[in-house]
């Protein structure tokens, strides 16, 4: 093969303008995404040794997506203020971020009763796992782990390290179980939060 010429753009990729900075978001068909996602899960099933390894690797893919999604959204957002409060970032994820990723806001945001470092976000019909069915032998596996990874990436990128896990919860009114994401923030975040609140009062 002949050696290829070096790229004609002399600008680094991060210096180039975001060509897709349009007002409406470009889309591809959900089918394309669904095929890619299920194929990747198939690849992981063949290679992973256990269900938790499978979930970890899937979550890692989502994590990298989340890091970049937050940067993209912050860049395009008119308001350039960074969020420093836990509730602010969670509301951002529940609202604008979910809207951008999946076309609608998430359905529920709730703080856990037993600790102020645990929060729940619910989505009644997660777009990415709509066409995935989990057989009984893989029971604890949840394809929503990809979305959990995206959330963890966004939280991490915003400075709120946390653990995010996805769970199916069956609901009596709905045929398909609801996906619930449990967000457990790290102690360093809670310390900082307490410090900020004390500073606000004092």
């Amino acid at each position, binding site marked *: 093969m002949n050696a*290829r*010429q*070096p*790229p*004609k753009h002399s600008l*680094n*990729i991060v210096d180039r303008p975001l060509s*897709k900075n349009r007002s409406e*978001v*470009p*889309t*591809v*068909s*959900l*089918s*394309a*995404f669904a*095929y*890619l*996602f299920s*194929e*990747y899960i*198939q*690849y992981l099933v063949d*290679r992973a040794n256990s269900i938790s390894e499978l979930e970890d*690797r899937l979550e*890692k*893919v*989502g994590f*990298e*997506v989340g890091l*970049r*999604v937050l940067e*993209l959204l912050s860049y395009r957002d008119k308001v350039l203020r960074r969020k420093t409060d836990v509730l602010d970032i969670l509301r951002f994820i529940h609202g604008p971020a979910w809207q*951008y*990723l*999946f*076309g*609608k806001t998430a359905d529920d945001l709730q703080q856990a009763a037993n600790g102020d470092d645990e929060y729940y976000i619910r989505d009644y019909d997660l*777009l990415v796992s709509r066409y995935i069915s989990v057989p009984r032998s893989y029971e604890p596996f949840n394809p929503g782990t*990809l979305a959990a990874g995206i959330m963890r990436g966004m939280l991490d990128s915003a400075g709120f390290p946390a653990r995010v896990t996805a769970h199916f919860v069956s609901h009596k009114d709905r045929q398909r179980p609801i996906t619930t994401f449990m967000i457990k923030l790290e102690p360093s975040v809670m310390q900082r939060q307490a410090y900020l609140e004390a500073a606000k009062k004092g």
Partner: protein
Amino acid sequence: MLRGGPAGARNAPSLEQINAEVFTLTYGSIVRQLISDFEDIEEVNKQLEQMGYNMGIRLVDEFLAKAKITRCSSFRDTADVVAKQALPMFLNVSANVANWNPDQTECSLILTDNPLADFVELPEEYRELKYCNVLAGVVRGALEMVNMEVECRWVSDMLKGDDCYELRIKLNEHRDERFPFKDDD
């Protein structure tokens, strides 16, 4: 849910949509994971093509069910359908068909816009990586399910400095319908 489809397509129905950037970023993440799993770039290329093949064999069913097309009478027709209906339907981009060989068994699909490779820059050490190889696999898988055995390879790649993405499709043979059961069972 996001609704909408390609703006200029006449026959392609509008499938439910998802944000293209999520798709792009997820694909990028997957490629990165594959690179860290396999030491060898050629292995990654092969794996991407295999994944694409598996996607293609299922995707063609959905395409045939949703697009109202008549039977293709020749490979030329097939290439047109892939470029002007299948690609817009799934990826919201259209391609041109060009560079036919005199036999009418080889052609190129030319794309100027590729949602798989937005925001991507290939560093020097991954020069051999065929980033969009999954698309080559999809075309191969889809056409194999309609009894055309083809070979697909990338000739031009915008990530490597060329000015478009060119996928060369070569028809090897038309296979007859293979029945899974033998006649004497």
